[in-house]
């Protein structure tokens, strides 16, 4: 059970890195980076989960005192999602420029920067 939950997150991180390793297209690379990051969301939220607890928002239906899941990991994940989106945007902008300057976005065909 625990192994499956944490394992899913770790799997996504590693599978994202694997995608970068085998990628034949830089846009694909950037998306794989985003998948690797989504693994960290799953790890964080899995860490904070508590069986039977509700969302950490108190209201009339769940007054203060009700058991809630860990809100700290949720705040961290929120920050993480913002980082992911903005970094993806930056990387995509760089890919567009690579395409314009090199005429290709296949990593095997980019021959600059050797040595």
């Amino acid at each position, binding site marked *: 059970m625990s192994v499956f939950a944490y394992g899913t997150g770790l799997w996504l991180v590693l599978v994202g*890195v694997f995608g970068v390793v085998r990628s034949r297209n830089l846009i694909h690379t950037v998306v794989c980076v985003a998948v690797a990051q989504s693994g960290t969301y799953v790890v964080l939220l899995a860490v904070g989960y*508590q069986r039977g607890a509700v969302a950490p928002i108190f*209201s009339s239906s769940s007054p*203060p005192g009700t058991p809630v899941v860990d*809100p700290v990991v949720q705040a961290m994940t*929120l920050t993480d999602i*913002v980082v992911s989106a903005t970094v993806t945007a*930056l990387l995509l*902008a760089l890919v567009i420029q690579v395409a314009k300057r090199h005429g290709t976005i296949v990593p095997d065909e980019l021959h600059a920067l050797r040595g």
Partner: protein
Amino acid sequence: MTRTARFVVFGIGTAVLVLLLGSAVFHLPAFGGTSHPYRDSTVTAALQRRAPNVVTSINFDQRGLDTFGEEAILLASVLGAITLLRPGKDETQRQRVPNAGRMLQGTRLAGYVLLPISLILGADVVVHGHLTPGGGFQGGVVLATGLHLSYVAGSYPALRRLRPLRWYEYGEAIGMGGVVALGVAGVLAGAGFLANVLPTGTFGQLVSAGTVPLFSIAIGIEVASGVVVLLAGFLEQDLAIAAKRGSR
């Protein structure tokens, strides 16, 4: 390196990492367990500040510095992306693009109807972040996406009119500047950077939880402006190239 060599290097690394992480996972506290020491503290702290949404309380009060850094990342990324996507010396200035293609009447109508709804929804999510799920970030994204529904509605000129980019750059500066100002206000009050120094009001009211709603609104302004500028950067790339082809 050859493709095979690359996979071998990666394979060796992954094998060791899987061993390492695998052994770690078996020693972690069980999934769904009840021991969350930091959670207990933050819930107490949030209730002290009369903030029903504990996540918002953490983002905009207890760990506000993280959010400050996060917004700086957003600002840096937006600035970076538009700097990278600027027309190069060898590229001509972008042409004005007329209507970007024909759209189905239904799509257009849906776009126009959804536009005001999404704007109201976004503003609502921003303002009520300390009471219900949401907050400056989520609301800001909804606002920015909402504006782009006018693009879905098929009218790029309308989007342009709604979107004088200069004003959105000001929006970013104002949003981020607002966060800095809140931070310094905390220092001036003697409580510390980004301290929640306003009266916390009554639990569950719109005006409560001190500076949390203000912080949230500042973030909402910045995020909405930032995402608009960002999407604009990518859209203009696409349209500029489409126009170049059209004129050929």
